[in-house]
């Protein structure tokens, strides 16, 4: 049999009506499981008049109440440490993980059993195989293995596929770069930010990564993997194809991946998830092509049933047929576009960090940047962008002027103070980058003004 380009050909190429029928059946099973095992879920479902027997079509999903992160946190406070949404006894769990805590909030804590970990790896297999990773590959995982779930699932997926897997934890950046080159890695996995960081380090070491054996980069952890300018920069620095993926600790693994055809978006793993796109204010479903909030239902992890979880991620769904790979699974065009909470209001203009990054990355001479919000004269919102231009041959002054103009043009004329920062002075990141520093004491326009403590 010829090698399939799909991890699970039957599911990935199934006609849409088949995928939808499969989702309905799995939804019924999930409701039955949650209702029977989790009193907290049973109460919510029963109050909404939802039982497994009442699930006949995908429209029935809309009768299930939306679940929020706040409810998850309340459950953890009510029944610490794991909360009220746990469906199996703790003694059959084999692993504990938690959210990365980059938002400063109390972390979400999760447990998984043995078969949950097979499933977690399986979701990564869809993504890795779909992007062309094969048993012959040598995969370097640039990840600090810890209680943050991050690339753990990817690591096991690489082993499942049969790759030679190099766990790149507890190493400095220069050690990682040297190991990638010395070991002849053909695939490197990291956040987009860290892929650029390693490229910078390679230059310092006099290593030309574009001439290394690396053919593919698997990116995750930040929306930047689908920002065209950032992806282009990463691909150019590494001389390799970069594929975006995205997952959540709440699910344990990825739910979307970019296939080898690189259609400018990420396929949804629709045999294991139902992904809805809703208006974040009204909760009404949005049609293809409109940006809304991702709401996810997961059929995988049984330990913690996830039914209609509001992710706060912004996405735009388009039909799978917009990609030539043959998968029938829908696509999030542009991957995760940002988070509902990311948006900053500056003098009446909405500013999204992802949009700012997309413009900055059009200037490959810029190594690192930071978006800084502050209050001027105790009353006025100001936004400045600090950039490091380390290329001695580049005309930094010209770049600053061009960048300021481009940012204003794309933000209703909003004035950005673009300044050059000393080389190496801005923070570097290995996991999720935090490039926005909001130090305002007064935020928003007149009508929305609020004061921080």
């Amino acid at each position, binding site marked *: 049999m010829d090698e399939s380009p799909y991890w699970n050909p*039957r599911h990935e190429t199934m006609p849409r009506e*088949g995928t939808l029928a*499969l989702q309905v*059946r799995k939804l019924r099973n999930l409701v039955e499981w949650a209702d029977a095992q989790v009193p907290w879920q049973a109460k919510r479902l029963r109050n909404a008049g939802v039982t497994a027997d009442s699930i006949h079509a995908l429209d029935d999903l809309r009768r299930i109440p939306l679940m929020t992160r706040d409810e998850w946190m309340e459950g953890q406070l009510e029944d610490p440490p794991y909360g009220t949404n746990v469906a199996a006894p703790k003694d*059959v769990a084999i692993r504990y993980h938690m959210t990365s805590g980059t938002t400063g909030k109390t972390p979400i804590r999760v447990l998984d*059993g043995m*078969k949950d970990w*097979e499933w977690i790896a399986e979701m990564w297999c869809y993504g890795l195989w779909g992007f062309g990773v094969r048993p012959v590959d040598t995969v370097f995982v640039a990840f600090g293995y810890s209680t943050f779930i991050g690339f753990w699932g990817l690591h096991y997926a690489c082993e499942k596929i049969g790759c030679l897997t190099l766990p790149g934890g507890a190493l400095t950046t220069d050690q990682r770069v040297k190991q990638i080159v010395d070991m002849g890695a053909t695939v490197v996995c990291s956040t987009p930010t860290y892929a650029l960081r390693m490229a910078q380090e390679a230059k310092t070491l006099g290593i030309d990564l574009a001439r290394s054996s690396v053919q593919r980069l698997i990116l995750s952890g930040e929306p930047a993997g689908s920002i065209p300018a950032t992806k282009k920069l990463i691909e150019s620095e590494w001389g390799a194809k970069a594929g975006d993926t995205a997952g959540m600790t709440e699910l344990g693994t990825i739910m979307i991946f970019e296939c080898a055809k690189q259609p400018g978006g990420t396929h949804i793993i629709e045999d294991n998830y139902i992904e809805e796109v809703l208006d974040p204010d009204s909760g009404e479903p949005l049609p293809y092509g409109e940006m809304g909030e991702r709401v996810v239902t997961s059929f995988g992890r049984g330990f913690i049933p996830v039914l209609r979880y509001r992710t706060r991620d912004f996405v735009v769904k388009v039909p799978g047929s917009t990609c030539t790979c043959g998968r029938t699974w829908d696509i999030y065009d542009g991957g995760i576009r940002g988070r509902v909470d990311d948006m900053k209001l500056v003098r009446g203009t909405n500013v999204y960090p992802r949009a700012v990054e997309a413009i900055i990355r059009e200037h490959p001479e810029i190594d690192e940047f930071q978006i800084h919000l502050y209050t001027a004269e105790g009353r006025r919102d100001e936004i400045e962008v600090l950039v490091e231009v380390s290329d001695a041959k580049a005309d930094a002054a010209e770049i600053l002027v061009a960048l300021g103009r481009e940012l204003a043009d794309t933000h209703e004329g909003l004035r950005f103070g673009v300044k050059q920062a000393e080389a190496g002075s801005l923070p570097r990141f290995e996991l999720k980058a935090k490039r926005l520093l909001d130090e305002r004491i007064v935020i928003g326009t007149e009508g929305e003004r609020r004061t921080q403590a």
Partner: protein
Amino acid sequence: MTHQMKNLMDADLSEAECMLVDVYRQLARTVEMHSDELPPFAKRNALKAMAALWQVMNGLDMDPGQVYHLGA
């Protein structure tokens, strides 16, 4: 031995897929009914194998259900 099997989407499974389904079912039955008779190495390795084959069942649309009660 040739036998036919359909999954829950009413699709025919191949002969090789049917064989894996049979292996999973036999393994699950052994774990469920005889795990107390097995030494630790056999019981825990059987559970690990079952967890891996659970994913085959899941991918073949054979609705393997939850297996936490068996320890996996």
